[in-house]
């Protein structure tokens, strides 16, 4: 499971003082802030990465937005939450720009992935732990068929194991919206899964 957002700040690192120094154009503070936030941003970007963008480019875009808007950071929410929202929105915008979502076909799956799917359908406890990676790849392919917001929500809830409250903090959406969207997104994912399994039967 992923560490909760509240656990992100490292002990001994004074975020508020660092932000203040960055606002006063202190380059060492900018470097320290970048190093402090990098693991969080890198993980979010890798989890919600658009297909045609390199993770490093996206991380760079996120940090440019963070630094450009640092004066607007009021401190009402923890810096990590504020940065998470910027990272998530940047990924969503990038995903939205990549409109084409090629249909997933059974033939697109590797042998390991088809084996994992066979194991999943064979019954509970058939899937070997060594097949988890293949399962992850299949889920990512299925998620790629969904709209960016649906993909984000299912990744946060089902793959990262975040709570609805954590999703609210990361995305800024309210709880009823998250619940309704999650329900609909899960239904769409199931439809894609059924389509894939029907293709296997043919």
């Amino acid at each position, binding site marked *: 499971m992923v560490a909760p957002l509240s656990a992100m700040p490292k002990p001994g690192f004074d975020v508020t003082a660092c932000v203040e120094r960055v606002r006063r154009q202190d*380059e060492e503070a900018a470097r320290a802030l*970048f190093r402090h936030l990098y693991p969080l941003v*890198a993980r979010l970007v890798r989890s919600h990465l658009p297909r045609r963008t390199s993770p490093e480019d996206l991380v760079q875009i996120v940090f440019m937005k963070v630094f450009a808007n640092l004066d607007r950071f009021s401190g009402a929410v923890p810096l990590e939450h504020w940065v998470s929202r910027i990272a998530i929105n940047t990924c969503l915008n990038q995903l939205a720009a990549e409109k084409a979502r090629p249909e997933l076909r059974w033939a697109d799956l590797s042998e390991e992935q088809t084996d994992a799917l066979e194991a999943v359908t064979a019954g509970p406890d058939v899937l070997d732990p060594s097949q988890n990676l293949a*399962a992850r790849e299949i889920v990512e392919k299925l998620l790629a068929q969904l709209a960016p917001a649906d993909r984000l929500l299912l990744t946060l809830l089902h793959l990262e194991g975040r709570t609805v409250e954590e999703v609210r903090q990361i995305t800024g959406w309210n709880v009823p919206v998250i619940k309704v969207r999650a329900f609909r997104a899960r239904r769409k994912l199931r439809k894609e899964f059924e389509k894939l399994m029907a293709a296997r039967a043919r």
Partner: protein
Amino acid sequence: MNSKDEELQRLLSAAAKTKVEAAVEPPLVLETRVLAQWRAGRADDDSASLVAFFRHALVGASLVLVLSAVWSLSQPTGGTAGDEAALLNYEIQRGLNP
């Protein structure tokens, strides 16, 4: 929960057990790129403040110009004496060249 839901749930549970690897240390190249852009943004800020300073200076100078013009027009000039001299000059010219 029907069988397809159960299968999907099993797939999601297995997928969730695989962590997304993300480096803790940022690559040096990326750090350099980000800080270079941060410095460039800072330089843009400086030039923007310089432009703002010149804009304010221009507005101030224009204001001073307008006020000076208003002040000079509203001041009584030595116009009467000047006019009399001009009339005398005119009279003399007419007297010399009838």
